[in-house]
């Protein structure tokens, strides 16, 4: 067990920092410090291309597909330096962190060649079409239908909560391809181009005034017969494999964003005097400790080569960070006091911390609610009996 980085790794850190700081001070200074998912989306697509041009886009991928075949330690370092330099989140994070690894793991050589270089290069932005109005926590009850017509899949139905669909080029969906099938059986995992007459996207306004996610309607939407990953009927397996990639190295970058948020709260507490309140001090300390435990939890998860042992522990990660961040939002408001309830513009606009307070209510819902996470931990990690299923 060793936490320190080697000289070579520290050199790599300096190289990352130099390049990222240079970009944020130069050509891309206009996007530095953006914390929302969608602001300046067009410029951020250019940023994706800049990353790719210098081979910093997907460093963990094999060189053949636009990566560097970077070691775990290097990926950790890059994720940390990326966030430290104030670089905004990746607008193609769904492509890089979910679609890409899924294609790498389950796709054909032809699919890899077709998609991976473009994902890495920021030319193909992906979004995820899993949830439906009646298939949220109960994801396996999706009703969107896919049928093979000649050399095309034809898709009909509705997806919801599709983050970033309005700025994406492609969407991956799970759809029911076997008539009359139920639950996880009979689903197929398809990749579809969004810019077509059969796909209609309508934004959904959120409690913080933003609209980062959408309703996506499919009316005889089409994709080529070979656009599926895996075989027809294997969609659930692929979807579950994909969700496991959510716990990858990217979590460390996400944590650096959390670091910036906590630092802002600490600065606010010092500035307005609430740092002298012993209860606030206790909560600040708890938040600080929780953030470090997230980091070391992620490093433990990533370091462990014995995956059978660590999988159970990895299941606790989502509820851990989501609950931590929701508490952080509440702490932010207690530190700010009533000043936190005053907006910054006529259009229901908010500074980072009040926005964090509102936005963090979504953290414990999306990607599996805390309640679903607890079921998964109890059933998969602790071996408790599964929830009984009702009759559909």
């Amino acid at each position, binding site marked *: *067990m*060793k*936490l*320190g*980085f*080697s000289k070579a*790794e520290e050199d790599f850190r300096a190289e990352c920092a130099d390049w990222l700081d240079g970009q944020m001070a130069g050509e891309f200074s206009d996007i530095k410090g953006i914390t929302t998912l969608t602001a300046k989306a067009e410029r951020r697509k250019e940023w994706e291309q800049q990353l790719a041009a210098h081979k910093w886009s997907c460093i963990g991928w094999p060189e053949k597909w636009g990566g560097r075949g970077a070691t*775990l*330690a290097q990926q*950790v370092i890059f994720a940390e330096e990326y966030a430290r330099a104030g670089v905004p989140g990746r607008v193609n994070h769904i492509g890089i962190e979910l679609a890409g690894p899924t294609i790498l793991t389950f796709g054909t050589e032809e699919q890899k060649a077709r998609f991976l270089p473009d994902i890495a290069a920021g030319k193909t932005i992906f979004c995820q079409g899993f949830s439906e109005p009646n298939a949220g926590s109960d994801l396996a009850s999706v009703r969107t239908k896919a049928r093979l017509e000649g050399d095309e899949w034809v898709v009909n139905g509705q997806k919801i909560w599709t983050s970033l669909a309005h700025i994406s080029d492609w969407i991956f969906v799970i759809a029911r391809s076997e008539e009359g099938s139920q639950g996880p059986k009979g689903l197929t995992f398809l990749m579809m181009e969004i810019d077509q007459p059969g796909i209609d996207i309508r934004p959904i306004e959120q409690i913080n005034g933003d609209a980062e996610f959408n309703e996506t309607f499919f009316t005889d939407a089409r994709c080529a017969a070979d656009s599926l990953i895996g075989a027809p009927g294997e969609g659930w397996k692929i979807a579950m494999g994909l969700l496991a990639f959510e716990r990858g190295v990217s979590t460390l970058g996400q944590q650096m964003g959390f670091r910036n948020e906590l630092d802002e709260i*600490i600065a606010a*507490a*010092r500035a307005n005097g609430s*740092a002298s309140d*012993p209860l606030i*001090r*206790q909560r*600040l*300390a*708890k938040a*600080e*400790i*929780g953030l*470090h*435990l997230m980091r*070391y*939890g992620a*490093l*433990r998860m*990533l*370091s*462990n*080569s*014995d995956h059978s042992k660590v999988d*159970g*522990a990895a299941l*606790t990660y989502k*509820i*851990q960070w989501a*609950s931590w961040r929701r508490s952080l939002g509440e702490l932010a408001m207690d530190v700010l006091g009533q000043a936190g309830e005053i907006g910054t513009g006529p259009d229901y606009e908010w500074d980072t911390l009040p926005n964090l307070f509102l936005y963090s209510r979504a953290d414990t819902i999306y990607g599996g609610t805390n*309640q679903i*996470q*607890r*079921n998964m*931990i*109890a*059933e998969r*990690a*602790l*071996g*408790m*009996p599964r*929830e*009984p299923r009702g009759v559909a």
Partner: protein
Amino acid sequence: MDFALTDEQAMIADTARQFFAENSTSARTRGAMAADGVDRDLWRAYCQELGFGGLSLPEEFGGAALGMVEFATVAEAAGAQVSAIPLLGQAMAGSAIAAGGSDAQKGEWLPRIASGELIAVAAECADLKADDDMLTGRCDFVAHGNVADILLVIAPGGAWLVETGAKGVTVEAHLTMDQTRPLATIILDRAAGTPLPDASAAASAAQDSGWICLAAEALGGAQACLDRTVAYAKERVQFGRAIGSFQAYKHRLADMMVEIEQARSAVYWAACTVDEQSGDSALALHAAKSFAADTYFKCAGDMIQLHGGIGFTWEHDAHLFFKRARSIQTLLKNGNWHREQVAAMILGEAA
């Protein structure tokens, strides 16, 4: 960077787990609880047969020259069985002498502390008066002070070794809620102390290893609470179903696991920072001690609740965990104190 146990570390952890699970049975622990709070056979076997008594002490003084990570795996295993052994004092006094003692002191004391021949304890004594190394003062709430042969006294002005059988030393044993680690008051009235040449190194080594010991014990204890409750949840049937199939029950188990996994990260983070002498070691130690202790208390409390009436009986082991957890929360500074240290650091107020 590789935050996983090495093969050798995993082997030590497995050996320790097996040793305590086999030997530190409930019956034997209860025997010790009814006596002086030490399972002597277990202690002898631990120090001599297993040879782990000097795990982190130098080899020339009977140790194995390993680090805090290895020690944490062992303390975790001992904690999982709520073993009645003076592990805390051995770790604190041993590491203090190794870090701040003279060669002669190391040669005289360490081999006998490592072998378990002597029971060593450590205590802070805020208002100690030292008159030419004749010590006068009162050490309160000394863990396993009732059975100590040698006392390491840490005070603002220095660190001394005192033999408890010497003139001027009075030990008052107390009936203690956690009978696996009884507390005693040790009163010094012009008792002869042997000063350690580097008192500050000794004090900080004692503190580091003490916090690691308690945090790791707490982690092991919390995991044991969860494991035992999970086993019960599978076998106990009510309303025609295993009680573990009820969401109210399951979710509480899941919450225990979420805390325990964080406590595990905290303990091994802290142990690594001490071994690697890295700059965030103070932060990591405060985090580990406070977080692991709170996790243990939550899990032990939940264990009682989730066992229902049987969990409230003397016969069931739940109360051993519950009482040990409560004791760890307060030993070597409580959670609020540790978090206040962290708050001062992050607010830029630290000295």
